[in-house]
């Protein structure tokens, strides 16, 4: 059916709900169980794919031949895991989806008979009586049930083209699953837990220097491991654990480009930033740690340093654009990352132009390092607001040089001193004569234009808004972009 021989599609899935993800460091039993199960299964097949905590799978063809058949292999794996004191289910079938369902059946039956084998070619029959909810698409399942399609068999009977037309790409994928086909080929690889490296300090390191020095050799070890498996990591997680149990974790962009020294430097920045304990600038976990860092850990020391490669990708080298690319030079990147270490990841932004009507909509600020390449970022961050659309009602050029992140309250009065109001039909109660910004002294308005009414997102009750914009020039020579919304005047930008 897929063009792939059926025997190559045989997958063995092991399900073991007692697993914990390896990131839960210190949670002794869970973390150990993870390593134990992975290594137990690896005894049978070195290349396994950890789908998510608690489930791993591998292509069964080779190991089954070696261990004397699928049934025998499944029984041995189940025994090995059960010997660790953990419940598990083992399922073998054509394709990942069926194997996962089979392993769940095995788990539900209990330890007496944890292995379920779906014979080759029997996947469709195995799946047919299952409820559509097993597809893991609640919305789709709900819709199918209301259409009278209750089982996978009934869903599979729908012609693929019709399923695609009616339910879209998601539906088509689910339809493939229901027919016993693979949505994607199995990608086997060594488990990611293998690739992290760590070093323990005993006695705990009081000074950053020792940790940074160790980090350099640790980074060398990490890079060697990654290179040996032909991988590169997009980010590297630096995890520092103090002897009082406190953790400082921060992800650093790596992209396979950092040298050992550069990684060590990042460890230093992380420690410096944490020790400086800048309030307010920290983010996430490190923010919590910095609050207590002042008294607790600073007196103690660092007991463990771990480097965890994050988002592994095939190492393909790097090809820079021939020209026209704004390549972030090393110097700039170093300075930016340094500031991020001091003030937090969000402190350094790169602007990306986007579409929109008001000046504040026309640029998106992306934290430095979150962008792969200028082109990529533009595409992903402008998804909702492309630049190249007309945006009727946008403020005409020239653009204001000062765009307030939060509009400033203002008061515009007419000649008699009463607030200028705009009616629903865009009529003014009087000509603007004086402007006072943020409760400042009123200044005479020498020229003005407006109102330019804008009705944005009227179809969305939450975000709908009606405003009227004005341009005002005051006697001191300043020009302002003002907006009236709900009877209030706000200054959005100024043309300094």
């Amino acid at each position, binding site marked *: 059916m897929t063009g792939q021989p059926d025997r190559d599609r045989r997958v063995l899935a092991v399900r073991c709900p007692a697993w914990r993800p390896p990131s839960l460091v210190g949670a002794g039993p869970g973390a150990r169980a993870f390593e134990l199960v992975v290594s137990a299964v690896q005894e049978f097949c070195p290349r396994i794919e950890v789908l998510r905590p608690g489930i791993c799978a591998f292509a069964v063809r080779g190991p089954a031949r070696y261990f004397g058949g699928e049934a025998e292999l499944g029984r041995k794996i189940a025994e090995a895991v059960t010997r660790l004191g953990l419940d598990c289910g083992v399922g073998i079938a054509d394709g990942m989806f069926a194997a996962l369902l089979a392993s769940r059946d095995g788990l539900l039956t209990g330890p007496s008979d944890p292995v379920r084998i779906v014979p080759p070619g029997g996947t469709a029959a195995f799946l047919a009586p299952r409820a559509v909810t097993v597809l893991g698409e609640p919305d789709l399942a709900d819709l199918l049930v209301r259409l009278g399609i209750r089982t996978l068999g009934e869903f599979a009977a729908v012609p693929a083209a019709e399923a695609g037309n009616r339910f879209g790409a998601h539906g088509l994928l689910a339809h493939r699953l229901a027919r016993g086909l693979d949505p994607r080929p199995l990608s086997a690889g060594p488990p990611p837990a293998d690739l992290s490296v760590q070093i323990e300090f005993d006695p705990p390191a009081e000074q950053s220097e020792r940790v940074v020095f160790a980090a350099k050799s640790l980074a060398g070890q990490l890079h060697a491991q990654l290179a040996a498996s032909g991988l590169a990591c997009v980010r590297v997680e630096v995890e520092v654990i103090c002897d009082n149990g406190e953790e400082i974790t921060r992800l650093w962009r790596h992209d396979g480009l950092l040298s050992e020294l550069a990684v060590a430097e990042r460890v230093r920045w992380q420690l410096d930033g944490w020790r400086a304990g800048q309030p307010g600038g920290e983010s996430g976990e490190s923010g919590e740690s910095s609050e207590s860092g002042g008294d607790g850990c600073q007196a103690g020391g660092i007991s463990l340093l771990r480097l965890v490669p994050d988002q592994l990708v095939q190492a393909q080298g790097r090809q820079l654009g021939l020209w026209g690319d704004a390549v972030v030079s090393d*110097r700039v990147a170093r300075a930016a990352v340094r500031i991020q270490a*001091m003030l937090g990841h969000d*402190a350094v*932004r790169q602007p990306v132009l986007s579409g929109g009507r008001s000046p504040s909509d026309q640029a998106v600020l992306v934290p430095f390092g979150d962008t792969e390449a200028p082109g990529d970022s533009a595409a992903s961050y402008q998804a909702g607001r492309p630049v190249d659309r007309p945006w009727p009602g946008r403020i005409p050029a*020239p653009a204001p040089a*000062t765009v307030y992140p939060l509009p400033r309250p203002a008061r515009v009065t007419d000649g008699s001193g009463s607030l200028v109001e705009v009616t629903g039909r865009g009529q003014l109660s009087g000509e603007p004569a004086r402007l006072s910004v943020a409760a400042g002294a009123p200044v005479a308005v020498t020229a003005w234009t407006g109102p330019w009414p804008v009705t944005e997102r009227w179809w969305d009750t939450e975000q709908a808004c009606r405003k009227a914009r004005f341009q005002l020039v005051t006697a001191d020579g300043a*020009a302002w972009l003002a907006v009236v919304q709900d009877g209030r005047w706000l200054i959005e930008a100024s043309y300094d």
Partner: protein
Amino acid sequence: MGAAVAQVTSLPPSGRDGLAGLLAERTVRSGREIGAGSGVLSGADLLPVLPALRDLLPDGALQRGSVVAAGSWSLLCLALAAGPVAAGAWCVAAGIPEFGVLAAADAGLDPARLLLIPDLGPNWPQAVASLLDGCDLVVLRPPNRPPAQARRKLEAAVRRHGAVLLVAGDWDGAQLRLRIAAQEWTGIGSGHGRLRGRRAQVVADGRGGWSRPQARWLWLPGPDGAVTAVAEEAGESSAAPGSGAEQAKIG
């Protein structure tokens, strides 16, 4: 080896003839050394600026290692930063949360070579010193008036790294000061028209090069957001394409 040295030493004399023209093409290096750090720098000791601003600056460009004060935050800062960025420098705008990115792009400052740090935190002189290490051009609005010691430290960092510190505010030791002395918006009337451009008189003075202040009229911005020189003695209305009619009404 010997031949290569001879070639290099033979370059400056030929370049000195048309200095101003060659500066624009960034082929000339001034002979002055800035400091120990200048060895790592690429390119000349001067950062080119937009053509409209050349007459205002002593060498027709921004001198590396100098501090330039440009009054309060305004399009003038953006215009000063646009030239170096177009020539390949990286610019960071620090302490300016209301940075108008679209105005910057219109003025010729490529947002792809721009970093924004809206809030520098309490220890901002240290952060700025780190930035000077990485970027050729730092546009800074100091959150508060720096103590003299911090100020001198930053000036030393500017010289050491051969960067340019462009202060959106006042700076006591600035080599060059620019300000908008007079301005006039065109295109907008009482209830009609719209803002089309601003004629601004920019005045430059400072210890650095001018014996007396220099003043130039600029479109800051022009109708398309670009910064250009106002054509002198040519009838001001003709210098503003498309806005002559409205301009007359405002006077």
